[in-house]
């Protein structure tokens, strides 16, 4: 599975886990899915943990600035941003 598809599947799965119901890709993480910077950080921490268990494993790290910047993101924009920070090699 390609890295971006793995990221998309993981984010979609976690969203369904935390916000059950049909996915609306246009919803933003804050106004639409009602995450704040703390709960979005927990969401992203879960994404990081799950990606690390994929085969092959993917490595996604982030900080509070990234979490803050993604509050206004829709689902595809978030997927793109997480994919850009995800690598196939462990962070040094």
């Amino acid at each position, binding site marked *: 599975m390609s890295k971006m*598809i793995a990221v998309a*599947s993981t984010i979609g799965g976690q969203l369904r886990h935390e916000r059950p119901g*049909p996915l609306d890709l246009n919803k933003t993480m804050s*106004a639409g899915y009602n995450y704040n910077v703390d709960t979005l950080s927990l969401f992203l921490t*879960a994404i990081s943990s799950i990606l690390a268990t994929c085969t092959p494993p993917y490595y996604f790290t982030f900080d509070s600035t990234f979490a803050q910047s993604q509050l206004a993101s829709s689902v*595809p924009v978030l997927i*793109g941003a997480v994919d850009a920070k995800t690598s196939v090699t462990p962070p040094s």
Partner: protein
Amino acid sequence: MVRPRMIGLLVAALVLASSPGKSQDLPFPPAQAKICVASAGGRTIVDKKQVAEYLLLKYAFNIVAAPEPTDPRLKNLDPGRRVLADPRICVDNAKCSKSDAANQQSARASVATLLAGLAVGYAPPTPPVSPDVYILGANEENAVECLQTSGKPIEAPGALFTAPDKSKSAFRIRGKIDDLFVDRAQVKAFEATSQAVLSIGEDETAKKRSETLQGVVAYRVDTGLLKENGQRLELIPYVQASRNVVKTRPESTAKPSASKAFNVGAMASAFIVVPNQSDPFGHVVNLRPNVLVDDFDDSRILSLNLQYVPIRNAVVNDFILFRSGDTELFWFKPVLDFRLDTGHYLDKGNGPKAEERRNFIRAGGQIGFALLSDILGPPMTLTSTYTRLQALSGDKDVGYFSTGLSFTLDPYKYFSVLANYSNGTRQDTARREQLWTVGLGVRF
């Protein structure tokens, strides 16, 4: 001589990005009629050229920045698909701006949502393929099927949402000190925070006039520490004023009263994350030295207040969505925190009970809920909390019930009309109060 391919790229640049960097607010996926076509096999499938052009309207990309492709498979692609199919288009490319790179990534991620089966109304290919492999092939290759029911397309939800206010101001205005750690960008959590209130009431029957001013002004300072995994440590100095005055006319039977208190302090707020696969835990710890100046009895209290807020997504201190079919009914947030207050009287003040006042240690917490709904029209917020602190030393327990209903008046939730009721012994002054407030609320 200008080559035909260059002319094609220039025309495409005009068509796809007539205002480079200006993306259009379009839903994704769009109505199936915009990106779906009938295939030779009798199915309705996504047309790759149309979806690429649509996505580059939504996420503008200055196609002039695209270099001549070296990969022969990219050379014969139309310009829209060429942008989506090349993940390295912006690598070491000075013509590619930061927004071009981000928009290309978002457009490719949108294709990924179709391929990962996240978009309602679309069936992904099996097995899933990467966006580049998908875009490179013909429509029938790894086709994404547009689903129908009873001959009609299944359309994905397409509402667009107002982005939160992008104001970077570090000032905050709230009703209660406890809400200072919630940021404006956290739209729903912000909507559920307390509001500063100014209320003036004239009661002609009781011949009295009531004035209420209650609010806290603060300034957030990010320490830059603890940033990994979204963790944070910030300092928030604040000043809170609380003033309730009842004035009576000579013929009134009501009793005049006046209560004025000021709190000055600083909150150190830390957010700590403990990873746990798909259910990580969050811990907010707020430590707050505070000086209370109570003009009611001229007392002064120096206190140290500790608050612990556990967070688990969709369980506690986070919103849970309740829906009926596809209709969102309301968002419900269970509220829970734990508190430890220690207080030392700098001045016991005056009045008959002044000498009885003793330094205190109180432990307890707060339970309650916030309920948010848009189904009535203007966004409605109902909050209800009960704060209970038991005196471990000193003599006064705290028990304070507070409930409020508000309707916000603007898209950023700054202003609202509200009705609040509170009853009990206040946490800061340890004095009993029973208060109805109807007025204009503001938070920032």
